[in-house]
């Protein structure tokens, strides 16, 4: 609990402190001696001088250098006394009883700030424990070499790292391990998947924007570079960056400055860049799809994570680890892996690498509910294509449903496209596009579909209203 330290220069207000401390979630320590007035970083201070305002300035000057905020509390706010106290180091000046609400709010804010600092440190510690290098399982030489290399660059706070590897090999896990074991661990680790967001939005997300930079920019907004300041920015799928953003990223790496969209001022940023990609960036650079200069800027410390097929000896130990982990997580009896199950695991193809192995073991734990995991429990999954009576996939993502519903509705409407489009609540043009181009058209016109009056078709069981209610909103 954050502490409230009160230095009393007079007896005034002395009955107030216990109440205020309780209301603001602070423990209380009161003293009348400046020498015994502590100023630790997990506290907030008050110098109280009801009736003794002329002593405030001296009291503040006598306080040792401190790492917490200390306010002056008096019974009146005579301008000279206020100015003198603030010049001597008071963070705020409150005149009671008039400013009691302001004092309470200030104390709450300070208590919150102390808690935030505490959270940040505790969070960093938890993440460090979670992302210990020792916790990354595997004995294959390829993995050990990659981890050795990563461990060597950890003390070097500003070094840019490029992690390569197939999907599911653990690139993000390694990026987090590099951050949380390094000197920047108390600063934020900010990750962004460059493939998930269109270019224009990604630009404002990364660099922020000034007010009026575009139609919707009603106020200035910092971007991820600014939010990651002091910490690490993890750019996943960096190979998907557009040429424009490649150029802007290169400038950041060279100049360590960013400029918000619509801004004229350059802002300094201190951010470690860890980039990751599953594509061969050098080959992309040779084809002219990725800037060669950016490639060399990113490739300062390259770390390649091996695919699971290159570390077959790790498969069974990893599988056993996941079985234990999920049995605990779901509070289920610990199932054993049968010898046949282990053989299947070793010989199965794992295109999704460790992530796919983890998912398969989680599935096995949930479905076996404690019985032995047999070979058929871990064979490559073949998902049933469940269809409803209409021939429409069920359940399925909305786009899939839309595409399937188009010919179905056309048949119901005896080939009348306008009527079929009307019944599906989409435009005739879109209907034709879906008829001609199927899934590709559905994905392309997704945004457009969302803006149309009736966004198409049947029962998916999993509608939009649940998100509309945003159960997880705070």
């Amino acid at each position, binding site marked *: 609990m954050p502490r409230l330290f009160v230095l009393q220069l007079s007896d005034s207000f002395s009955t107030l402190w216990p109440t205020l401390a309780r209301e603001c979630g602070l423990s209380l320590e009161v003293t009348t001696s400046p020498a015994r007035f502590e100023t630790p970083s997990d506290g907030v201070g008050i110098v109280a001088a009801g009736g003794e305002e002329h002593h405030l300035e001296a009291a503040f000057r006598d306080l040792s250098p401190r790492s917490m905020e200390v306010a002056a509390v008096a019974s009146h706010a005579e301008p000279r006394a206020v100015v003198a106290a603030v010049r001597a180091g008071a963070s705020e000046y409150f005149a009671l009883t008039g400013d009691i609400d302001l004092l309470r709010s200030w104390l709450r804010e300070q208590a919150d700030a102390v808690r935030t600092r505490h959270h940040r440190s505790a969070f960093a510690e938890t993440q460090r424990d979670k992302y210990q290098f020792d916790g990354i399982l595997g004995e294959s030489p390829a993995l050990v070499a990659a981890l050795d290399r990563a461990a060597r660059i950890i003390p070097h706070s500003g070094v840019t790292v490029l992690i390569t590897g197939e999907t599911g090999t653990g690139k993000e896990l390694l990026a987090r391990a590099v951050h949380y074991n390094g000197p920047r661990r108390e600063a934020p680790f900010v990750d962004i998947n460059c493939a998930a*967001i269109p270019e224009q939005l990604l630009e404002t997300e990364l660099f922020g924007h000034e007010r009026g930079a575009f139609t919707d920019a009603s106020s200035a907004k910092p971007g991820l570079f600014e*939010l990651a300041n002091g910490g690490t920015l993890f750019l996943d799928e960096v190979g998907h960056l557009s040429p424009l953003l490649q150029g802007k990223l290169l400038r950041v790496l060279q100049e360590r400055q960013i400029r918000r969209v619509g801004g004229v001022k350059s802002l300094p940023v201190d951010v470690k860049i860890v980039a990751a990609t599953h594509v061969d960036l050098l080959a992309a650079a040779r084809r002219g799809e990725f800037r060669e200069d950016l490639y060399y800027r990113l490739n300062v410390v390259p770390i390649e994570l091996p695919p699971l097929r290159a570390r077959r000896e790790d498969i069974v130990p990893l599988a056993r680890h996941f079985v234990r982990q999920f049995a605990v997580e779901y509070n289920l009896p610990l199932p054993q892996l049968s010898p046949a199950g282990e053989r299947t695991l070793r010989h199965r193809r794992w295109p999704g690498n460790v992530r796919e192995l983890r998912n398969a073991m989680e599935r096995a734990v949930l479905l076996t509910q404690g019985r032995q995991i047999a070979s058929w429990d871990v064979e490559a999954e073949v998902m049933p294509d469940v269809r409803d009576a209409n021939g429409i996939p069920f359940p399925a993502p909305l786009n899939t449903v839309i595409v399937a519903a188009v010919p179905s509705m056309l048949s119901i409407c005896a080939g009348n496209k306008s009527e079929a489009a009307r019944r599906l609540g989409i435009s005739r043009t879109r209907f034709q596009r879906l008829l001609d181009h199927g899934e590709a058209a559905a994905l392309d016109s997704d945004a457009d579909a969302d803006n149309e009056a009736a966004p198409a078709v049947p*029962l998916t069981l999993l509608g939009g209203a649940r998100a509309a209610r945003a159960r997880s909103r705070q």
Partner: protein
Amino acid sequence: MTLTSTHGAVCAGPESIDAIVGRAEALLRSGDAREARALVVTSLPAIERHGNRAVLRKAVNLLGAADFEMGEFADAEAAFHQALDLARRDGDDLLLARATNNLGAIANVRGQREKALVMYALAVAAYQRLGQARGLAHAYHNMAITFRHAGLLDRADEHERRAIEFAREAPAPHVVTLARIGRAEISLLRGDARLAEATALLVARELIGVPDPIERANALRVAGAARLALGNTAGAHETLSQALALARRHGVALTEAETLRVFAELHARNGAMFEARELAGLAIRLFTRLGARRDRDSLEAWTAALGERLEVTPSP
């Protein structure tokens, strides 16, 4: 334009502004968004006059949350934007993260998925700065919902996993439940109904005796849908009946509507088209009342297609 001028000026009473905002928050948390909103609107002029920025920020965010609960998304967006501005000006990082997350939720409701993802990513960064595991869990869960709606199921599942991880650290068991149900829904969408059923039933079992009947109803709803997808109509009927009873007992209209929708599908599967249509009609009325336009429209389209079949294969 300030919120005061938007919402009119009425003076607050003698109660301290702190206490008023606390009361409004309690009203909102107990489900009375309308009363909470009225209280904040009435008190805003006094709060602005008072000059207590912390209380003002909290009040503005509460106003947005109340508007959101009532489905007044334009008003909610205006309030959250104002909260965001106040947070930036005053250096309130926690409010900044929350307001950004809430704006993401509004963008998602409107189907602006990319914008929603951008807002959530900014919220994640802000929560990272604060070391707020609970906030991270919420933001990742919201991102997962958006990815799920976009059909990016692998990404949605990874984000639910992260939500669970951070929710366990927080600890925020409610978010663990939400994210697990989300993962069951993703499994169902992937066509892995067995896994969906196992996950949803596990969550439902864990929630026995826990005062969270709403999420238990949701878990049973997903388990019912999974059983239906597996062709286990009797099992689906049993589970969906439990979900519906819970939803009705606790007045959770959204879960009731979603369960009725699955029930309608169950009847259609059994060839009972008349009953299917009846239940779909009930669900449509509930979706309409809730302002869930996308669900209403899609169910109406489905019912229209069902109507065609009804003409040729009348239920016995």
